[in-house]
């Protein structure tokens, strides 16, 4: 106990130096936690926007579908499987889809498009498709009419207004001929030109009939409350439904997006590393000064009978206390700041905001309140403190009393 007391008193022997060191740690932690939480928040927001656009967090297909995306690899709808998936604790919503390509034709104009059969009531829970209707209206509940929703770009290319009819020609299940005409009841708008120029939605039973694929689906699309346990949830669902199905996360379906996020995070880690390195050198400088100042005193303590191990404990406690005080203060100060940025996220304005909105993304910069962010920064700073405290420990271990006390 008296060793701790001695360490605490030593810590405050030069009050301003200790305060400067602790302030450096305080600001490093505050800055790191805030930037990390902003970065995580932005990526979370981006992913949430992106998966709610089309893919969902997780998709379940018949095994092999993703490799060869044809109707012949569609799965037979299975109520038991659907129930197992829907009842998984992490799953928020489940929607079935059938999806293939077709030629859309109006008068003299023909364009290729992606035909997606969706459950009118379940789909909005995942993609908010009903909110993307720019003109006309959305499907009715349990709609079984021959009606279609067209993406705005596709409708423009086909010069097709709401209320007109589109002809679809395609190849159905097992090579069956697929043809049908559908009344356009609405146009949906997507920010992404890729989606906006080629999507055509039909009610699921109508699409199944069109493709001669009664009771078949190409994918079950899942929404999750959070993607923190994404891989674990996917694996758990896969275990429950068996190897006849493949369960894919959005990261597997869109690896380029995941790579972009990882690269961006990597850059942030490097910036944080540089920040901590600078702080580390600052602390190291203080330690160098401190050890030079106390050389005689340390020699004297060993001379009068204090074992080097005890002296090392005192110095270790001093270093750790110094780091812990700065670190805890930084963490505590970052809590209200991060909370504020979470509740009142930074909002983009001007052209940047418009660009975001065009792609259907909310132009905001929210902060993540994930507790791990605070803990990880704390661990990093503590580890740095321990690492730096090796210097005084080494100096004490190699201390020669006579040399240390030589004036």
């Amino acid at each position, binding site marked *: 106990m008296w060793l701790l007391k001695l360490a605490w008193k030593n810590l405050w022997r030069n009050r301003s130096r200790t305060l400067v060191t602790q302030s450096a740690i305080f600001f490093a932690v505050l800055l790191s936690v805030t930037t990390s939480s902003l970065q995580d928040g932005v990526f979370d927001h981006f992913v949430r926007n992106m998966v709610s656009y089309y893919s969902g967090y997780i998709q379940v297909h018949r095994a092999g579908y993703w490799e060869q995306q044809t109707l012949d690899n569609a799965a037979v709808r299975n109520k038991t499987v659907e129930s197992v998936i829907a009842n998984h604790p992490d799953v928020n919503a489940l929607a079935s889809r059938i999806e293939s390509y077709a030629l859309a034709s109006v008068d003299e104009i023909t364009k290729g498009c992606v035909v997606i059969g969706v459950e009118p009531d379940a789909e909005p829970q995942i993609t908010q498709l009903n909110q993307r209707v720019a003109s006309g209206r959305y499907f009715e509940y349990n709609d079984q009419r021959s009606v279609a929703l067209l993406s705005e770009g596709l409708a423009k290319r086909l010069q097709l207004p709401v209320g007109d009819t589109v002809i679809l020609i395609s190849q159905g299940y097992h090579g069956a001929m697929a043809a049908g005409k559908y009344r356009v009841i609405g146009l949906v708008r997507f920010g992404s030109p890729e989606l906006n120029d080629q999507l055509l939605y039909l009610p699921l039973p109508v699409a199944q009939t069109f493709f001669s694929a009664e009771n078949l689906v190409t994918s079950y699309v899942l929404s999750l409350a959070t993607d923190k346990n994404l891989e674990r949830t996917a694996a758990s669902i896969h275990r429950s439904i068996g190897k006849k199905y493949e369960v894919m996360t959005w990261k597997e379906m869109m690896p380029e997006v995941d790579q972009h996020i990882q690269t961006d995070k990597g850059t942030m880690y490097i910036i944080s590393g540089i920040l901590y390195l600078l702080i580390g050198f600052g602390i190291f400088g203080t330690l160098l000064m401190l050890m030079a100042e106390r050389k005689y005193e340390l020699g004297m303590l060993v*001379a*009068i*009978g204090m074992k080097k191990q005890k002296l090392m404990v005192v110095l270790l406690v001093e270093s750790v206390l110094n780091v812990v005080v700065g670190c805890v203060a930084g963490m505590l100060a970052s809590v209200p700041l991060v909370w504020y940025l979470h509740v009142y996220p930074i909002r983009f304005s001007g052209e940047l905001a418009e660009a975001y909105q065009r792609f259907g993304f909310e132009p905001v910069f929210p902060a993540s309140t994930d507790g791990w962010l605070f803990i990880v920064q704390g661990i990093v700073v503590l580890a740095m403190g321990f690492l730096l405290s090796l210097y005084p420990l080494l100096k004490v271990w190699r201390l020669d009393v006579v040399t240390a006390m030589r004036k």
Partner: protein
Amino acid sequence: MDTIIDAHQVTKTYNPKAIPVVAVNDVHMHIERGEFTALVGPSGSGKTTLLNLIGGLDKPDTGSIVIHGTDITRLSANQLIDFRLRNIGFVFQAFNLIPVLSARENVELIMQLQRAPKAEIRKRAAILFDQIGLTDKMDTRPAQLSGGQQQRVAVARALASRPQVVLADEPTANLDSKSASNLLDIMSKLNREENMTFIFSTHDQRVIERARRVITLVDGKIASDTARVDTSHRHDVQTNPE
């Protein structure tokens, strides 16, 4: 007589591979319990080196140093620290005390290291502060004490572990004559009343006059070893704080 220190053929050379400097050269020395001995000699004569060797702070190249039956030249570094803690008290020239601890805490530190019971630590510290006449300064930080008072606290700390011998390296070098005289009064009183053995290196004529034995070193060798008449009884111990 009870021999406290028996140094035999002690030699210490610095820079043996470059330009060797023989700091202590074949020194033989016996110190009996209760002696009040001054090591004198010109600068570079080896006083501090000999004191460091006796105190186990440095190791001789040859020879043996037996303190109260233990040959300290054979002890490991850790054993030496332990030995110093229990058998040797040190008073250095300056910067003796830990600045962040109060005078009392500085004295108690030694007993804390010895893991003495708390009650005994408190009691012993109170006695020692009474002996050095600084009871009212127990809770004062060293920076608020004069040089003389600091050296008196250093003496109290040196005695806290009830050592076999107290080694003092130029204890009065940084003190004015009044403080020096006061410190010497306290040391000689403790020497007389508690039969405590003191050895101090010094240039200070006032200290030499008070010593009962004066060993003169020249070029690392003992040039003379003279016993003197005890005159310390003529001085009253001044216990008033400076």
